[in-house]
């Protein structure tokens, strides 16, 4: 609730501020100066709080239990994925996602085990940002959101409804709700522990490497792995 209300209050103000400081540079990232400042704050928070928490979690909780946790949150996500597949005109995938939820919530004991994948119901990756993209909406300017990280105007618009129907938000007891939310964040961060050290190794400038990776991978997701490929071979 706190996060939701804060987001409601902050976002319009943030967009207004951002709109005022467009600069020349990368056309996909007109708010780069502000985005970079937010990234620096996010990065510091990550370095001193979230990443150590994720490392501790990885070291303390054995792999099978972490898999259960990932499956549990993934199971909730499958419902949202299914709706988005329907919205994108892919009923077969959508009903397969609902089937996954049904199988994993029961046979898979509240989603802790991903039985559905074993019986051939593959997991999909869809969200409202992708749906909007599928409907023809461009990504709009790149946004580095405080705490949430890389996004675009379109993906932020898609993420807000997702927050509004978050089943975890309906958990009555506040300490439990916060614990579940915290676990979701830390578990999610733990999955990126290998990728972030690769980012450190690979990038001349982490901000722009991350941005360009995010924008291209979202384009790829919108087109389900077959983005329009510009032919460019500059070799010799």
């Amino acid at each position, binding site marked *: 609730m706190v996060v939701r209300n804060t987001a409601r209050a902050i976002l319009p103000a943030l967009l207004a501020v951002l709109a005022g400081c467009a600069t020349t540079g*990368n056309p996909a990232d007109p708010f780069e100066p502000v985005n970079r400042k937010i990234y620096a704050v996010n990065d510091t928070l990550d370095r001193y709080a979230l990443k150590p928490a994720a490392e501790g979690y990885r070291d303390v909780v054995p*792999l*099978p239990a*972490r*898999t*259960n*946790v*990932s*499956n549990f949150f*993934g199971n909730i996500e499958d419902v949202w994925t299914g709706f988005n597949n329907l919205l994108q005109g892919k009923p077969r995938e959508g009903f397969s996602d609902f089937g996954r939820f049904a199988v994993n919530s029961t046979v898979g004991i509240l989603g802790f085990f991903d039985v559905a994948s074993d019986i051939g119901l593959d*997991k999909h*990756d869809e969200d409202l940002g992708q749906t909007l993209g599928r409907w023809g909406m461009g990504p709009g300017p790149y946004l580095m959101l405080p705490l949430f990280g890389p996004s675009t105007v379109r993906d932020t618009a898609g993420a807000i409804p997702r927050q509004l129907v978050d089943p975890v938000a309906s958990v009555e007891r506040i300490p439990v709700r916060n614990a579940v939310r915290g676990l979701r964040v830390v578990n999610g961060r733990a*999955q990126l522990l*290998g990728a972030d*050290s*690769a980012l*450190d*190794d*690979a*990038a*001349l*400038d982490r901000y*722009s*490497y991350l941005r*360009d*990776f995010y924008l*291209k*991978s979202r384009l*790829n*997701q919108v087109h389900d*792995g077959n*983005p329009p490929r510009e032919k*460019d*071979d*500059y*070799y*010799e």
Partner: protein
Amino acid sequence: MKILKTLLALCMTVLAAQALAQETPDALARRVMNEVIAVVKSDPAIQAGDSRRINELVDAKVLPYFDFRHMTALAMGREWRAATPAQRDALTAEFRSLLVRTYSNALSQYKNQTIDFKPLRMQAADTDVIVRTEVRQPGAKPVSIDYQMDRQADGWKVYDVMVAGVSLVTNYRETFSQEIKAGGVDGLIKSLQAKNAQTGANHK
């Protein structure tokens, strides 16, 4: 007798070379990965993070199948044409060490993953193919890693690697063109050298 033996040996060499040249790109990728993973799994020094051992392994088994000059050209985009031959050599050398170090460090974290090869769609006459794989690890979403390869005189070579559909080569283009705008091609070479010196030192 001696002539016969020499002839026979020659025949065998030619046959073996032909077999290698005819190896399909996906078979090649599968063979190389299986060899590398077998070593990683069985070598305690590599599992302990011995970067020298990992580098030796990558040098011997993986790098012969990569075309770093092509990769560098692709990362540079249109700036490649403006670079002098000496600058191209320097860029290729620096970009190569950057990519190799990134790859080697990622490899040293290899644990519990399995690699699925997707069926390769390829005509016999094709000279440019994408070998698609999916890396699965327990408790995480599978990640697609695809290798774009072209056929050269001495066999198939990788010139692009795509993770989650994103080229790890052209992902540098924006940064490179920023660097070139700020300090020319030589400025980019200096930045790459600085990055290599810095990250190399961190991992020693």
